[in-house]
């Protein structure tokens, strides 16, 4: 090979790198390892995590411990889906393109909006992407955001807004849901978009249509973040006036993976199709008249339009969207609805059960679908610590994101959580609160307060 190139050594090829910029030592990294050794090293690290297999997980806050059916793994691990890249050559990418088309159809059905893209990175950055779209679509630079929107979404939107020069105004909650009067006050003719989430971060189902009226009045876009596992039973955003419905896709076919990779879904009205971020597959014909699929509307995209693109995204989450599609096909029309109903009923049971425990009050009374918020009469961090010692991840502590709910906990339900586990949660939580409250005279001095050991 060297002879064909006309050099003596590979080193010669690196001579284009100026000498002073060439690293004159090996990288300070360990030497390579055998496959068996790497496996052992990583298995040892994995063993130091308390995962949802080794404890009972009631933590949600945007990502949920759903059961991922085995066929999802079998199909997503196929080389033909796992190892190609973006379908730039449609003739040899019909499989991936058709999956995108099916995924778009499914997400459009779920959200009740006619247009879906093939997926974005994940939930919160999809919210920020909607902000960029809304700014371009309305020519305005002000966002009105419910405090019920996931704190990570609010923070991400704020991060992006500094870049594209927009202002973010927050509207508070009242008994768990967005304060309608405050929202109506906050929206004006400079508002590009109103952002809601339903169920919101505290689990409450919002009255999206009523809240959205303010956006409609002033010509702002209504952006609704939603949980794709609740749309079998909850009225979809598209039927409640949303211009954009989006969210975190993890509950559909994707593992927890300590936060990623998952995907974000992004659906919109027909009017916004040419402003959409991300890939979109479209149906067409080949020269012989056969049905086929291509990447449609590429003139929105960075590789064609550069600085005039609707978004900068290139690599997205195609494999994660495939996982979602397979999961949805597996659930099917009836299974998807049944799962939604199961979540609502189990959640209602858990909420009632916990509310009856001494030292627990509901944080709000609004209707919930799969997650709810409680207040515990003891330091939440220590209560969680005690529950963890008994093998239960009892919930997500609200105090960091919502100082006003210092000892608040968010409790999430999936189809994996049995009635027996919920009953156990009630018992363990009750005992933990009682112990912290000192009723059993437990010595707590060896515990650090909810923080680092």
């Amino acid at each position, binding site marked *: 090979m060297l002879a064909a190139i006309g050099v003596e050594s590979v080193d010669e090829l690196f001579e284009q790198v100026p000498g002073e910029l060439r690293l004159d030592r090996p990288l300070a990294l360990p030497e390579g390892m055998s496959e068996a050794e790497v496996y052992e090293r990583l298995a040892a690290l994995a063993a130091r995590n308390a995962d949802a297999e080794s404890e009972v997980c009631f933590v949600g806050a945007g990502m949920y411990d759903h059961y991922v059916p085995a066929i999802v793994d079998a199909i997503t691990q196929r080389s033909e889906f796992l190892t190609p890249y973006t379908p730039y050559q449609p003739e040899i990418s019909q499989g991936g393109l058709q999956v995108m088309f099916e995924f778009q159809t499914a997400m459009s059905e779920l959200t009740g909006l006619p247009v879906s893209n093939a997926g974005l990175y994940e939930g919160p950055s999809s919210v920020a992407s909607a902000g960029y779209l809304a700014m371009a679509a309305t020519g305005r630079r002000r966002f009105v955001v419910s405090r019920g929107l996931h704190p990570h979404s609010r923070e991400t939107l704020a991060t992006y807004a500094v870049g594209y020069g927009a202002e973010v105004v927050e509207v508070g909650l009242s008994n768990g849901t967005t304060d309608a009067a405050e929202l109506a006050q906050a929206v004006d003719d400079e508002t590009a978009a109103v952002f809601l989430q339903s169920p919101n971060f505290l689990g409450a189902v919002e009255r999206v249509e009523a809240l959205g009226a303010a956006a409609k009045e002033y010509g702002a876009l209504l952006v609704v973040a939603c949980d794709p596992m609740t749309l079998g039973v909850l009225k979809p955003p598209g039927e409640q006036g949303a211009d954009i419905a989006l969210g975190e896709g993890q509950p559909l076919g994707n593992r927890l993976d300590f936060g990623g990779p998952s995907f974000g879904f992004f659906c919109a009205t027909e009017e916004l199709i040419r402003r959409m971020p991300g890939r979109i597959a479209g149906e067409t014909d080949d020269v012989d008249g056969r049905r086929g699929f291509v990447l449609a509307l590429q003139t929105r995209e960075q590789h064609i339009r550069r600085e005039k693109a609707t978004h900068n995204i290139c690599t997205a989450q195609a494999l994660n969207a495939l996982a979602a599609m397979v999961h949805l096909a597996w659930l099917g029309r009836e299974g998807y609805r049944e799962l939604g109903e*199961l979540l609502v009923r189990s959640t209602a049971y858990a909420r009632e059960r916990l509310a009856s425990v001494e030292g627990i009050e509901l944080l709000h009374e609004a209707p919930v679908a799969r997650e709810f918020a409680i207040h515990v009469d003891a330091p939440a961090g220590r209560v969680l610590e005690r529950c963890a010692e008994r093998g239960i991840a009892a919930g997500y502590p609200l105090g960091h994101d919502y100082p006003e709910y210092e000892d608040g906990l968010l409790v999430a339900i999936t189809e994996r959580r049995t009635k027996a586990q919920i009953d156990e949660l009630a018992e363990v939580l009750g005992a933990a609160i009682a112990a912290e409250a000192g009723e059993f005279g437990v010595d707590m001095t060896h515990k650090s307060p909810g923080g680092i050991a």
Partner: protein
Amino acid sequence: MKVQDEAVLTIFERSKAGRRAAVLPVAEVPETPLEELIPAELLRDEPPRLPEVSEPEIVRHYNRLSRRNFDLDTGFYPLGSCTMKHNPRLNERVAALPGHARLHPAQDPKRAQGALELMWLLQESLAEICGLPHVSLQPSAGSHGELAGLLLTRAFHAERGEERTKVLAPDTSHGTNPASVAMAGYEVVKVATNERGGVEIDDLRAKIDEDPGQVACLMLTNPNTLGLFDENIAEIAALIHEAGGTLYYDGANLNAVMGHSRPGDMGFDIVHVNLHKSFSQPHGGGGPGAGPIAVSERIEPFLPKPQVVRREGGSGNGPFFDLDLERPKSIGRLRGFQGNFGVFVRSYAYILSLGADGLAEASETAVLNANYLKARLAEGRAGKRLPIAFDRHCMHEFVLSGKPMKKELGLATLDLAKRLLDFGFHPPTVYFPLLVEEALMVEPTETEIKESLDAFADAIEQILAEAEDDPEVAKQAPYTTPVRRLDEVKATRKPVVRQALD
């Protein structure tokens, strides 16, 4: 062919009322009517029309679809700029361990020490490879890293009371660069390319001199998208730093220089690394990826939060790995939770497998393979019809121009690409970079053997020979693929982006 005809049905078209796959657990909680739990007006009238299909038919459907994809595990995939290297299956196995795959992202750091340590180790590894002291793993892909880098630049200048408006980028830059610049609220200023394929220093100087106080950043890929190392990088860095700007390294081409040269040593302040390129995360048909950023000391205070940190343990305790949320100067979050952790596991497994020497050798072999294939394509018909755009040794990829081929044979680069499909190859990247007419960008990667490179060169030679006899063969190609050329204009003019259901 029967299989192909059948496969064109969508999963929705295979639906028959009453069929299903899922059996759900029994909740054993009261069967309260839904309307008693949630007001009826907030409930859905009809469930979404998802397909009703049995499990065996779902498996068949997606297996059939998979056969309508070409993939890296089947054949050579020299898609320039995308680094289509082999994806070791060990990485899939370790990523699927329950301790990784079923770890909740909001788990208390005390009970996620393995995951946080892995992230910290990956940060340290990438810092060493990039030659920059601090890393954030948060960005989800390369372009997300670019946006992060530009927001960091904005924050860096804001702290000095400056508001700069311009970001310079060469005309060879990836499309994501200008798109990210626009999203970050800056204006793009294009810099010309010189006759050696590098940045035209005079033009750069002129663009800076127009208003040095407005230059926020220069975004550069090195080696650039022509596969060439910019020998003037030290001078370029000095010019930008003198003007007070930051220097951003688009790490899409890091695979060329691992263990040989480091962006930090070249003077860059911010680097993004595509873990799905250099560090073997499978491309997944268009993701997932991850785009961690490595930064210099002066950029560190502004890194996104949370940041994974190692805290030294007190008296006899080991170190504690934590998520640092108290970062007052941080630009804030770029996404939910901590990033694409599953990708981190795979990439860290890759780094452990190869080690220091292995990474350096990977880059050497990538560069050797590219130069060998370039040499093969400089022979015979390819050498005449598809000349190299800039005739010098390349790094890990190179760019050919199909201009003579088009002029002499009437064959566009697109035709050559489509004909390559019939020969069982994924074509190179086409029509990029924009400054090369009829461009063909070839990146073989280090995981290809000589025989594959030879077969690819032979196929090109054969296609060109065939075109000398009858250019129509390539112009009508492909013939052997599940579908032939598709009407993309129709798909954009009257977009059908979902299935109509009734």
